[in-house]
């Protein structure tokens, strides 16, 4: 007989008092190799209005495609300084910004490679349980064969791929639309 799992509850409007002191908005710490990227965008609700003060957490592999976790058994280099966890808050205009490194490919089901991506979870007032999604990188040749992207209806895949901002090669824009037109794809597992 399994125990009943504890219900999720909203973070409410004041989550920043807890998360703000422990933000992790820049993963490019000394000792971590890889291509630096600045990921930014907005969180948007069903009215097209910005969602202020949403909390966004990200989880990713390093540039070699290795996770800083005991269940990653791959024989790949892992920098001692690399954690792979990001935590940022959207401001009152719904804008967030994360500085990180582009992860490498990681193993997927049946030995198929997964394209570089970040797992993203989103918390906000009005959300009774967090949303889980992924963000992929534009023009990456591995995207076409990614086993998770392939399960997403083709017309919605673009919601999971960040856009290059012309002015700066390292800058990527990715909006999180929780409802409505161009709604971001969210996953269940």
């Amino acid at each position, binding site marked *: 007989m399994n125990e009943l*799992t504890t219900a999720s*509850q909203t973070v409410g409007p004041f989550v920043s008092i807890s998360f703000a002191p422990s933000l992790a908005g820049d993963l490019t710490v000394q000792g971590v190799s890889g291509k630096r990227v600045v990921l930014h965008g907005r969180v948007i609700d069903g009215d097209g209005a910005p969602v202020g003060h949403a909390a966004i957490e990200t989880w990713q592999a390093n540039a070699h495609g290795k996770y800083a976790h005991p269940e990653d058994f791959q024989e790949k280099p892992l920098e001692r300084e690399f954690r792979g966890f990001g935590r940022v808050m959207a401001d009152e205009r719904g804008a967030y910004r994360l500085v990180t490194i582009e992860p490498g490919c990681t193993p997927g089901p049946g030995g198929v490679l997964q394209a570089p991506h970040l797992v993203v*979870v989103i918390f906000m007032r009005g959300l009774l349980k967090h949303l889980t999604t992924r963000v992929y990188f534009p023009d990456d040749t591995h995207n076409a064969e990614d086993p998770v992207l392939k399960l997403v209806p083709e017309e919605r895949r673009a919601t999971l791929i960040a856009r290059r901002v012309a002015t700066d090669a390292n800058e990527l824009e990715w909006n999180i639309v929780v409802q409505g037109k161009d709604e971001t794809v969210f996953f269940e597992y």
Partner: protein
Amino acid sequence: MHDVHSYRKPSPGSQPDYLYPPYKSTVKRAPVQPLVLVPQTLSEITGPVFGRNEIAPLDHDLTRQHQSAPLGERMIVNGRVLDDGGCPVANTLVEIWQSNAAGRYRHADDNHDAPLDPNFTGCGRTLTDDAGRYRFVTIKPGAYPWRNHHNAWRPPHIHFSVFGCGFLQRLVTQMYFPGDPLLALDPMYTCIADERARQRLISSFDWENTVPEFAIAYRFDIVLRGRDATPMEK
């Protein structure tokens, strides 16, 4: 190649839906497109690992983070983080945040006309031990009004954030107090379909861990998704 050791789904009826119109903010924030069911991969069964060196000695004691003690009824909140198979979730980060005894958060957007307490921030963090146990010392939070519906009051509660062993175990929840008449009127509480799952959010009076001449204890166990019996075969 190692197959990943996947997580079971949460118990049926234990989790709220995204859309619950009595909680008005869900109406424009619940996705309307169906969620896409995808396989669990190394990316989701892993997640951040936190170390003891990241926790300051008084992070678990919300009554000793300022010059003087905060006003209000001091209490101990303790319990275990387990998976649904009853296995302890050891060394995982537990974060809490709450209002002060008057029902006011130390947050610029909290406009409730109740006093702030200069001796109370309302945030704590700790790691579970090898048996999945955690313990906080704090003060009992107050009820406060919100504008969801006419004469709406949130029952006193403490927000809990738990990481688990992988991102698939990530959970944010709220702990309530036994015998609270506000619960039946609270959409956060009533959004959960299963009555037993609602009850799981209510802490219990914990006489065993109540400290004489110091503070009453409440017990609140948190159950995360457990592992499938064997690693997934592909």
